[in-house]
């Protein structure tokens, strides 16, 4: 449990730092922060094994960190530096690590459902026992290609968990204005079971994820998890979030914060003391500060990089 706390805290502090660097003009372009949603990826990934694949959209820094990618490399990419995971050519939305089986980092809303099904297809093809997790948002869940992927994943019994991170909004469009029915039930017609999960509670997410992983890994085909969560910040850095009330955000922060939740549970268990949290907080802060320093010390990519990596040469 302490590990969940640390993982979530790392994401939160990392994102806060990214917000600062953005404000300083060190990060450009789009930058979508994950603050508020930390329990989703931490809970899900805790149920996976290293051989399993992960793919997500552009709100992706948290996923990278939990998959074990280095904070230095991620922050350097956010700042567009040569030391970043993509040599500064991907930015906030596009980083990849074959080692960690993290396949991005994609900017097209909805694309991760079929791409994830392709990763699952590869697991099945190779019979390596791995499964894939494909994350996308509540807005993305309305894309047609998601349902094309459901159909084929179910037909071919692909080992994949489709994870809808339902944070209530797709940019400025609330659920009520953009989505009919329940996402967790949208697999029914394809024979895909779904479950709605409290995404502000990392333990609840983990419990559901363990069940889903077991179901999927046993060869039953795909499963859908609709994880109810909330983003505290705007859609991206430039979004003033005028489409919702301050009170709504405050209420979520005060009463449902996933990090505060687990902290309370850990303290109540008596296993850890305040001092342990202080130490954890400091460790996390050190990692994050170091990443910001690393990023700023890393050079901008050479202009000649514009012409490389367009095609694999030779």
């Amino acid at each position, binding site marked *: 449990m302490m590990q969940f706390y640390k993982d979530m805290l790392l994401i939160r502090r990392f994102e806060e730092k990214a917000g600062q660097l953005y404000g300083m003009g060190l990060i450009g372009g789009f930058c979508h922060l994950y603050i508020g949603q930390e329990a989703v990826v931490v809970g899900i990934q805790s149920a996976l094994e290293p051989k399993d694949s992960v793919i997500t959209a552009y709100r992706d820094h948290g996923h990278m960190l939990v998959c074990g990618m280095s904070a230095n490399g991620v922050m350097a990419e956010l700042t567009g530096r040569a030391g970043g995971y993509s040599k500064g050519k991907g930015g906030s939305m596009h980083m990849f690590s074959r080692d960690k089986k993290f396949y991005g980092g994609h900017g097209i809303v909805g694309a991760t459902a*079929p791409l994830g099904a*392709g990763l699952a297809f590869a697991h099945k093809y190779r019979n390596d026992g791995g499964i894939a997790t494909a994350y996308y948002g509540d807005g993305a869940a309305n894309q047609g290609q998601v349902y*094309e992927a459901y159909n084929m994943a179910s037909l071919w019994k692909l080992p994949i968990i489709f994870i809808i991170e339902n944070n209530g909004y797709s940019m400025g469009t609330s659920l009520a204005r953009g989505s009919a029915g329940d996402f967790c039930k949208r697999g029914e017609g394809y024979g895909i079971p779904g479950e709605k999960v409290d995404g502000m509670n990392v333990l609840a997410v983990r419990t559901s994820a363990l069940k889903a992983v077991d179901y999927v890994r046993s060869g039953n085909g795909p499963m859908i998890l609709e994880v109810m969560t909330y983003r505290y910040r705007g859609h991206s850095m430039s979004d003033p979030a005028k489409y919702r009330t301050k009170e709504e955000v405050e209420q979520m922060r005060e009463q449902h914060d996933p990090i505060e939740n687990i902290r309370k549970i850990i303290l109540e268990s008596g296993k850890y003391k305040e001092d342990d949290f202080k130490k954890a907080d400091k460790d996390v802060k050190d990692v994050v500060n170091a990443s910001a320093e690393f990023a700023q010390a890393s050079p901008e990519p050479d202009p000649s990089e514009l012409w490389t990596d367009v095609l694999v040469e030779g």
Partner: protein
Amino acid sequence: MSIQILMPALSPTMTEGKLSKWLKKEGDKVKAGQAIAEIETDKATMEVEAVDEGVIGKILVPAGTEGVKVNAPIAVLLEEGETSSDAIPAKTATRPAAEPPSISCVPQSQTPAFAGVAKIEKDWTGPTVSLTVREALRDAMAEEMRRDQDVFVMGEEVAEYQGAYKVTQGLLQEFGSKRIIDTPITEYGFAGIGVGAAFAGLRPVVEFMTWNFAMQALDQIVSSAAKTLYMAGGKLGCPIVFRGPNGPASRVAAQHSQCYASWYGHIPGLKVLAPWSSADAKGLLKAAIRDPNPVVFLENEIMYGQHFDVPADPDFILPIGKAKIERTGEHVTITAFSRMVVAHGRRGAAGGRQAGGRGDQRGSHQPPHHPPARCRDDCQQCEENQPPRFRRGGLALRRHGLRNRHADDGNLL
């Protein structure tokens, strides 16, 4: 007077077919519209109907004959009262191919004989086999699948149906349903699944029934397959081949006739190939499957049934990005790809074989034998060259339609 019943074209691109069964025998009376025979094309089995009433005087092509050329006489229809001795065809629908006429700007000595099969790749001088473009493509996939377990084929109707255009014929039987995969009609979705599988290191060959339908998958081809390598700083590539027939077939209207060479040629991160002959098709498809980049492979339906010599060497493969000089000359360079290399089948112009990677199209070529907009007098498709009483079994084919097609070909050249 007796009428010849000719082998009909039952699809816009059919050049030959199998006469699988006669439904009438000699001496039988037939009415217009009655089915008289069954014909298997590359796509389907269909019935030939009589266009006129009369008596089947003589069956010229026995049931079970394969490779019957379109327009070849298959039977003779007699008018009531005629005898079968009247049925000996006075004049057949086909004529021996004449020598290509010379035109003054091409020195005679350098004019290759184009009436025969196309020349093979110069670097591959060993024995050759004659293959259709369709077979060449199939063989390329089969050979690569034998060589590399990570290669698989997916698309609509590729497995059980054996391919909408029969390009994947026999692959299911050899490789099984794990590696030859029928998809539902969801181009966007299965293109995305292919790309995801390629991210994971497999080597998918994704067939689009035709490239027209890949518009639904354009986003996955461009945004996911082509761009990821660059956005990953070279850390994650997408070794995938998207292939299928491209460009105009024949009389299938605008939605089914688009050429995408220029579209994909403008996308950084894609390699774009548009082969002409069987050798090009085979050598380049093998290279495409081995290539670590996403390759858009544009075939031409009209070429599928055409025969060319292909090097028999099992290692035969062609380099991507290098044009082939089909004919050398002194005066003009004509660059072309796909079917336009030699329009009108194998006659006419010469040219290169590919729209190059990164958007360039390279080649260095020679003028056609005859002015492109005019057909030679041995051309089977021209109205001028048809016998006066031209009939095809059951198909009222409008000759001017074909003539228009010729004019189009000429314009394209």
